[in-house]
């Protein structure tokens, strides 16, 4: 029988599966709709219409011209604000619980874990790696700038998520397939490589970790410094030395918490307010 800790982890993976299946079904239905036959009730929206990052790349156009970037609609704008509201409360929860491309990378990562066991996700020393993680802000700046200048969805040609969910359409640029291939290869060595080094939306949401209402907090009084939180964090965040995790890469996956990998009760928690109150 699954332990309480395993069940807690499965809750997240179930939610991830729901979103993955839903998005896959919608994009397949979009293709069916284009061919003149679609599944009733289910949305046949385009993949851009159900992606909150479309709202982010439209911000410039929206405030300057009052319109959205080509292929982006009100739905992306709404999803962006929903995601921002969630991030203000829980930080990178969208990345950890919702994003289908993050889920896909977690599945590939399981293969990597089988191949490299404990070495998986530990190939790059964190002292170097933590700086590489800022690369995604460069990607974000480039995408925002190019979208504003060209008025087109610049990132579409390089987006591995688009390549994964539209690979059968003939609309995907070779560059996006190449990047998807590179992500899959890197994923055999590293957990969520795209999220860590390149995702422009993750970069935006990561900023919310600096001031989110509910944070990952560690109680230094009950903590035994066993390092379980550090070892199990998919984003290699040093939880064991932080009182509050403000790292821009945190996915709010809750693996480090006392509910899952931390062996001490009430020691690492997702919570608001002061830790000692819970101690």
């Amino acid at each position: 029988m699954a332990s309480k800790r395993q069940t807690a982890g499965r809750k997240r993976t179930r939610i991830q599966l729901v979103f993955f299946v839903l998005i896959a079904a919608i994009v397949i239905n979009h293709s069916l709709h284009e061919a003149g036959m679609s599944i009733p009730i289910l949305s046949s929206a385009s993949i851009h219409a159900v992606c909150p990052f479309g709202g982010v790349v439209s911000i410039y156009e929206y405030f300057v011209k009052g319109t959205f970037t080509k292929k982006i609609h009100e739905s992306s704008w709404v999803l962006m604000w929903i995601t921002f509201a969630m991030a203000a409360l829980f930080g990178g929860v969208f990345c950890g619980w919702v994003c289908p491309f993050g889920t896909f990378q977690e599945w590939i990562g399981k293969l990597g874990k089988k191949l490299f066991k404990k070495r998986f996700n530990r190939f790059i020393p964190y002292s170097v790696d933590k700086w590489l993680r800022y690369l995604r802000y460069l990607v974000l700046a480039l995408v925002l700038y190019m979208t504003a200048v060209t008025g087109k969805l610049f990132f579409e040609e390089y987006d591995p998520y688009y390549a994964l969910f539209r690979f059968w359409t003939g609309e995907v640029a070779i560059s996006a397939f190449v990047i998807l291939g590179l992500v899959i290869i890197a994923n055999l060595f590293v957990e969520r490589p795209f999220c860590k080094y390149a995702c422009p939306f993750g970069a935006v949401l990561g900023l919310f970790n600096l001031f989110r209402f509910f944070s990952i907090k560690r109680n230094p009084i009950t903590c035994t410094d066993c390092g379980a939180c550090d070892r199990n964090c998919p984003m290699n965040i040093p939880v064991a030395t932080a009182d509050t995790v403000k790292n821009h890469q945190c996915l709010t996956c809750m693996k480090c918490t006392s509910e899952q990998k931390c062996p001490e009760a009430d020691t690492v928690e997702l919570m608001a307010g002061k830790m000692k109150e819970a101690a």
Partner: protein
Amino acid sequence: MKIRSNLLGPVVLAFFIVGIAGTMIANYWNTEKIKIPVKYKTGEFAGEYNPADIRGSYTLEDINKSFQIPVEDMARAFGFGDTDHKNTIRAKDIERTYGELKQGELGTDSLRLFVALYTGRPHTPEETTLLPNQAVRILKEKAGLSEQQLEELNKIKIDISSLKPGDDVQTEQPVESGGLEIKGKTTFQDLLDGGLTTQEIEETLGTPMGRSGDKVRDYLVEKGLEFKEYKTKLQELADSKN
């Protein structure tokens, strides 16, 4: 206050459900481009939809909504009479099916011309635009064209009976002239790549340049300007660069 997984999961779902349902109720949620062409800004037809703004992504159903032309007539006009799901045929499907032929081009601009003639609205087609024989037949029957218009149509009509939709259509590649050819698809970036400067483009158009990825034709139509007039001027400018 602590949050556990069994609460965070439902909260995440609730955010999406409430957010989407709320904006649906407020009539804001929209996952599609609302395909409505711009209206003429001046002249006799001011306030009416301008066929020149029909885009490749418009379906026959979209066009029907704005111009009230039966989908069946448009489908038959362009050789899609036997196709199922006529409503979802897009202007770009005509372009994909026929495209550039020896005699000219059969694509989105052909549909624009058909719509304009059918509804009696002005539209200056591109020089290479063709219309299928059956489109001309439908126009004769339903649009009450003048002698002069019929004469013009006879010059650009083409037999597409051997080019059925779905056939492997032999299209002609445009002759490489070595220079930039200004077409409906030409973007501002193409103009810049063709050696024109921003200042020259803006002086020619008499308006600030659009963004590099914008099609010049769409940009001008949105501003209520006639593409054909500026096309000639831009072409002269592009030719002078060679």
